[in-house]
């Protein structure tokens, strides 16, 4: 018995040792920020604080770059890496293109563990959240002064990137929401595809005219609105108030009022009253690409996508209608290239980000119809404007307001519920909008965001 006990004891000790060894790499609850360098091969700037003024020189440095996977963007980044390497032989860019569904699952824990990337991209509306968690390094003056950023970049593409007077990222993947017309279907219905449908009433009348039915069954939607509805309601709520969607001083939404209710009434009436689309018509498919919808609200990237998936569709791009009493405009989103506050090579990382957002790079991003330029200089560029779709899109981008909520999928979920509650559950517009407003404001409390006024 004694031997058996000793044997069991020995095994327990061994097990305990294994547990201890396994835990040795972990972090104590109170100090999870103990970190290891993010795969730097050698770190001449290892001691350089974020915001360093000197560019890297001397030994080799590795900058780890993560972004979510999207084939056209991945290809451009790979090209830019080669161009950058030619100019900066001492900086190696280690690039990972991570599927979107895995991106945030990987990013959050790796930043916490200190094994995350030096450079990564996040949606503009999430910049504040990442900044308040202390995860972002500011742009050093050696790369860009705030004045230069404001001079070189289109204002709406950097508005969300300025935190406490300092910029903490540079814009990428700039997208304005626009209405895509199927020009052939417009002509067939006797409508002019070169004109914007400026008012809500004009838009509704055209959508009704463009809708085709066989009995009760829609066979052609006036506008594909049930699929990716946010692409119409995000520009709508982005342009309702001069303060944007959320007043940054109070963290209160600006759409929970009569103007907001009227806008949502117009939007949902398209389906509930005018029946220019139905949630059950080609559900979870892409009717515009199939030639089964005459209009589609989408980001600019759709222009590049259509070239690939529906080359026979002749289309043009237009501004969405504007609310009564409001100026012409649309909403837009962008992402930001940011540098981790835990990066051991912030100067090299920012140098790479500067390259990614340079004039030459911006031209590449735009030329493939993947995204719009963030740099002011390209807005009247004759070479880019030679593509008529890009030329139309650039005019739309000039009157774009940023989608300036402080969330991404989370606020989308809340705002989508407005549409679903009204269209699928016949809820009263005012109640649906108010419930979402309360939920959105609670979300910001849960995120512990600080109002800018404080």
């Amino acid at each position, binding site marked *: 018995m004694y031997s058996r006990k000793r044997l069991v004891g020995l095994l327990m000790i061994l097990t305990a040792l*294994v547990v201890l060894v396994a835990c040795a790499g972990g972090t104590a609850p109170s100090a999870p920020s103990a970190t290891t360098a993010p795969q730097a091969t050698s770190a001449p700037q290892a001691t350089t604080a974020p915001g360093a003024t000197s560019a890297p020189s001397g030994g080799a440095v590795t900058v780890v770059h993560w972004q979510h996977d999207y084939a056209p963007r991945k290809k451009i980044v790979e090209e830019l890496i080669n161009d950058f390497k030619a100019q900066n032989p001492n900086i190696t860019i280690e690039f990972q293109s991570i599927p979107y569904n895995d991106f945030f699952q990987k990013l959050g824990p790796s930043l916490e563990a200190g094994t995350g990337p030096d450079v990564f991209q996040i949606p503009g509306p999430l910049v504040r959240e990442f900044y308040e968690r*202390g995860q972002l390094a500011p742009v050093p003056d050696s790369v860009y002064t705030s004045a230069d950023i404001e001079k070189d970049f289109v204002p709406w593409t950097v508005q969300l990137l300025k935190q406490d007077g300092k910029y903490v990222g540079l814009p990428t993947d700039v997208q304005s929401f626009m209405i895509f017309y199927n020009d052939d279907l417009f002509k067939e219905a006797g409508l002019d595809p070169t004109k914007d449908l400026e008012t809500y009433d004009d838009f509704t009348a055209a959508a009704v005219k463009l809708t085709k039915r066989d009995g009760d069954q829609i066979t052609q939607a006036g506008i594909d609105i049930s699929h990716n509805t946010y692409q119409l309601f995000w520009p709508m709520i982005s342009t309702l108030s001069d303060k944007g969607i959320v007043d940054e001083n109070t963290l209160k939404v600006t759409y929970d009022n009569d103007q907001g209710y009227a806008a949502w009434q117009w939007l949902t009436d398209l389906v509930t009253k005018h029946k220019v689309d139905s949630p059950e018509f080609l*559900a979870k498919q892409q009717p515009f690409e199939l030639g089964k919808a005459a209009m589609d609200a989408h980001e600019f990237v759709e222009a590049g996508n259509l070239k690939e998936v529906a080359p026979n569709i002749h289309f043009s791009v237009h501004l969405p209608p504007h609310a009564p009493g409001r100026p012409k405009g649309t909403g837009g989103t962008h992402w930001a290239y940011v540098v981790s506050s835990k990066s051991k090579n912030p100067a090299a990382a920012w140098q790479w980000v500067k390259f990614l957002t340079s004039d030459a790079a911006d031209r590449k991003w735009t030329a493939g119809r993947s995204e719009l330029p963030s740099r002011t200089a390209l807005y009247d560029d004759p070479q880019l404007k030679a593509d008529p779709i890009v030329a139309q899109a650039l005019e739309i981008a000039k009157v774009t307001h940023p989608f300036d909520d402080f969330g991404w999928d989370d606020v989308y979920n809340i705002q989508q519920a407005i549409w679903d509650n009204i269209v699928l559950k016949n809820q009263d517009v005012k109640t649906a909008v108010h419930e979402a407003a309360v939920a959105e404001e609670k979300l910001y409390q849960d995120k512990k965001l600080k109002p800018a006024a404080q």
Partner: protein
Amino acid sequence: MQLSLSPSQRRALWAYVFLAPAIIFFIVLFVIPVLRALQYSFYDWPLGVPQKTFIGLENYRRLFMDDPVFLISIWNTIRFTVGSLVPTLVLALGVALILNQGLKALGLFRTIYFIPVVSSLVAVGFVWRWLLEPSFGIVNYLLRLIHIKGPGWLVSPEWALPGVMLMTIWRDLGFYMVIFLAGLQTIPREFNEAAMVDGANAWQRFWKITLPLLNPTIVFAAVIGVINGLQVFTSIYVMTGGPGDLPGGPLNSTRPIVLHIVEAAFRSQNMGYASAAAFVLFVMILFFALIQIRIIERPFEY
């Protein structure tokens, strides 16, 4: 000093040595993460913020008192589990009984029923999105042929979860059929023959002989089914999500607990809250599994 061991102790030692790799992996990759998650569940543990605050049971209180969507996700998960597992088991048992009649093409039918099980769930999910498309999908087309107006399926808050259940029943049928078939083939033929001699009809033989003797297999299938059902994620994610479509909709009508956990952890970056939700799921699985084993498993002897 030489360790003197009896032959049985020596055998035990060797057994532990061979078991050690599995035990070590189990401890490192399962036990420790589970204990860490339990620890997180008592903390306000936002990713990326150095300060982690001990808040006791606050995460659990918030889950049940402040988060109606979590309660919806529990209800959805239970509905999904019951609504997909019960029909699957009944149908799988029926198919297994038919195939167990000594069909010549048994292997062929077994393969046909089993193919969905080995198909990629993601690919299957996309195909079913097409099948369930309300206007042009095959399912509603067939319903129209018999003058029934099909529902909106995945775009309807009432029908989205039944749509996912339908796909799950189709997919899992083959798996449980193979388990039942294996169970049926272990029942001694003599029992049925003796009953036939005594004049028992097929119905009586099924209720009095086959079903009681198949009980351990049914318990096994039910326990596995409940555990899988409570952890449902991928099928819902694929069928209700997509470019621009957030999974779990419309209006959270298909949102399962696991999706709630994943979003709390990686969208809200709140590991403490997500860990608490994960432990609620753990307790649910444990509870249902124990209940099933207690209620359904009845000892019997040949």
